[in-house]
């Protein structure tokens, strides 16, 4: 009894860690497990193991076109938001100009505003402009809310960059362009990459704003939502799990590359 309590107190942190991670990952594990469920109509009850869902991820009507839309929209929105956000971050981080403080505050607003409000007002704007809702209105909406996150992420990286490094490059015969290409950009790049990943994941799983502005276009989150009532196919679990492992892979790869860059060899 005494040894048991000693073992318990010694491993308290470990037990706590297991419980903590369990809390975080049980839903993911559940999703993953049910992607192997031999389901009929509704994927809520375990009916036996099968690999069929993984063999035919597009086996259900509309799921893959929805996924395709989400990926296309995510990539486009990420691309545009990352470029615009990075430029804004450089302007805010490197130059003193009239209205910088105001801009700094305004940039935070889209992050702080409720998505419902943003989605509804975007819808109003699109309707007033007479735009057809669909793929491009979703892209525009996603770029809008991703920019703030990109700016904040990249700006943090720029702030940590010693301006003397750029001065040293200029001192060593690199003109403004070369300095940016050889010194500034490589040193800020990890921040930009992180911002892009963040933007993609925000765009990929956005539901609220997309729902307002999608017209007849179906993205993956919209598909999951509309099918959840009627019974979600296990293919949704397959795609969800695949996305999770892909993200995990990217993070791990990023850390390995980051470590290599730091250590040098």
């Amino acid at each position, binding site marked *: 009894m005494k040894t048991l309590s000693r073992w318990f107190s010694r491993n308290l942190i470990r037990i706590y860690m297991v419980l903590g991670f369990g809390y975080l990952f049980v839903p993911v594990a559940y999703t993953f497990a049910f992607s192997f469920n031999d389901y009929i109509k509704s994927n809520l009850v375990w009916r036996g193991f099968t690999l069929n869902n993984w063999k035919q991820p597009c086996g259900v009507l509309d799921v893959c076109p929805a996924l395709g839309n989400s990926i296309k929209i995510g990539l486009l929105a990420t691309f545009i938001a990352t470029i615009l956000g990075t430029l804004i971050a450089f302007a805010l981080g490197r130059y003193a100009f009239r209205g910088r403080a105001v801009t700094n505050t305004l940039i935070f607003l889209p992050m702080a505003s409720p998505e419902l409000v943003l989605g509804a007002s975007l819808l109003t704007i699109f309707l007033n402009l007479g735009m057809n809702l669909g793929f491009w209105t979703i892209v525009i909406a996603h770029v809008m809310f991703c920019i703030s996150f990109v700016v904040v992420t990249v700006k943090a990286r720029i702030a940590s960059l010693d301006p003397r490094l750029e*001065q*040293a490059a*200029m*001192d*060593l015969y690199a003109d403004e362009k070369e300095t940016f290409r050889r010194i500034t950009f490589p040193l800020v790049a990890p921040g930009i990459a992180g911002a892009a990943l963040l933007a993609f994941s925000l765009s990929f799983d956005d539901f609220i704003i997309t729902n307002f502005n999608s017209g007849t276009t179906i993205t993956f989150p919209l598909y999951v939502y509309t099918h959840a009532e009627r019974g979600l196919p296990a293919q949704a679990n397959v795609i969800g799990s695949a996305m999770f492992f892909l993200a995990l892979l990217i993070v791990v790869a990023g850390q390995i590359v980051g470590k290599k860059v730091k250590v*040098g060899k």
Partner: protein
Amino acid sequence: MADASTSAKGDLKLTNITKSFGDFKAVDDLTLTIPEGSFFALLGPSGCGKTTTLRMIAGLEDPTSGKISIGSTDITNKRPYQRPVNTVFQNYALFPHLTIFENIAFGLRRRGIKDVKEQVDKVLNLVELPHLADRKPTQLSGGQQQRIAVARAIVNRPALLLLDEPLGALDLKLRRQMQIELKWIQTEVGLTFVHVTHDQEEAMTMADTIAVMNEGRIEQMGSPAELYDNPKTAFVANFLGQSNLIQGTIVDSDGDYHVVDLFGQKAKVLKSRTHSKSNSVLYAIRPEKLRIDTENNHRPGNVFTGGHIVDVSYIGVSTQYQVEMPWKQEIMVFEQNDDGIPPLDKGDEVTLSWEPAFSFALDGAQDATAGSEVNPEEE
């Protein structure tokens, strides 16, 4: 090594350079010539404008007015990368994402030099770190980073090498060693070095010529010995080493000497070493030039009588005495422990004597403590 970068050669000339930040004049109408091939130090307390001056020479700061030229080439409006000038930054500013080799090769590659490898290897050998070529800067010690920063600059054979407090981040022992090394490298490569520092010992060890800066102006310029032995202002006298400055009045003339009355005692000072506009002077004598003796046993020369010792610090090679004079001023005396005579005691009545030729006299209107209360370590 081939001379590739230098389209301009010759003396560096600053003409009426002023740099204002709002109402504050960091550098105030500075005119200065730094001869080609010299090791020149800009010495002064923090905020005296020395770093701003250096940054203007590098092109990292634009002068508000004035002109900078190297030889006959005006570089005032040239961008930093258009100047035959390279800088060793205070924190080294090595590029963290590049190897040591690529750090050093950076300037050569930007100028399209062909034999990059050969030149980088050569300079790595010069700073004795050829085995570190493939490392990243963060894997190097402070002293090694410092040498790489020097290598990265001198590999370009600039007309001017600027050093901004290059040894500030190193510990004392390493700093001493690097002082000697830098001086050796300068002799070896024969470039003009302009060295900015707040450390008077560092400036005196390395530089041929020192300009002492204070509040955006040059107080005095000269060789280390000239500045130490014949300072022209109280600031220079106090900033370089220690001085006893005693308020007095010139009362008479005796050949090459002025006779000065110091609280009733007479002392002589060379006319050529008197820098005063009026008869009111600060009579100055360095602590190590003073000899200390018991009352009736003094040596020839100028003499102060009636002092008594208030403090004794025995520090091995010498003994430092604080002697209170009849006019209540404390005079510092450094006595070499070279004759085996045990040091005098606290409370002893003493006589101070010195060679008249070793003293100097400054304008009596200035603050006698100028330059002494500045904490040189403060940055």
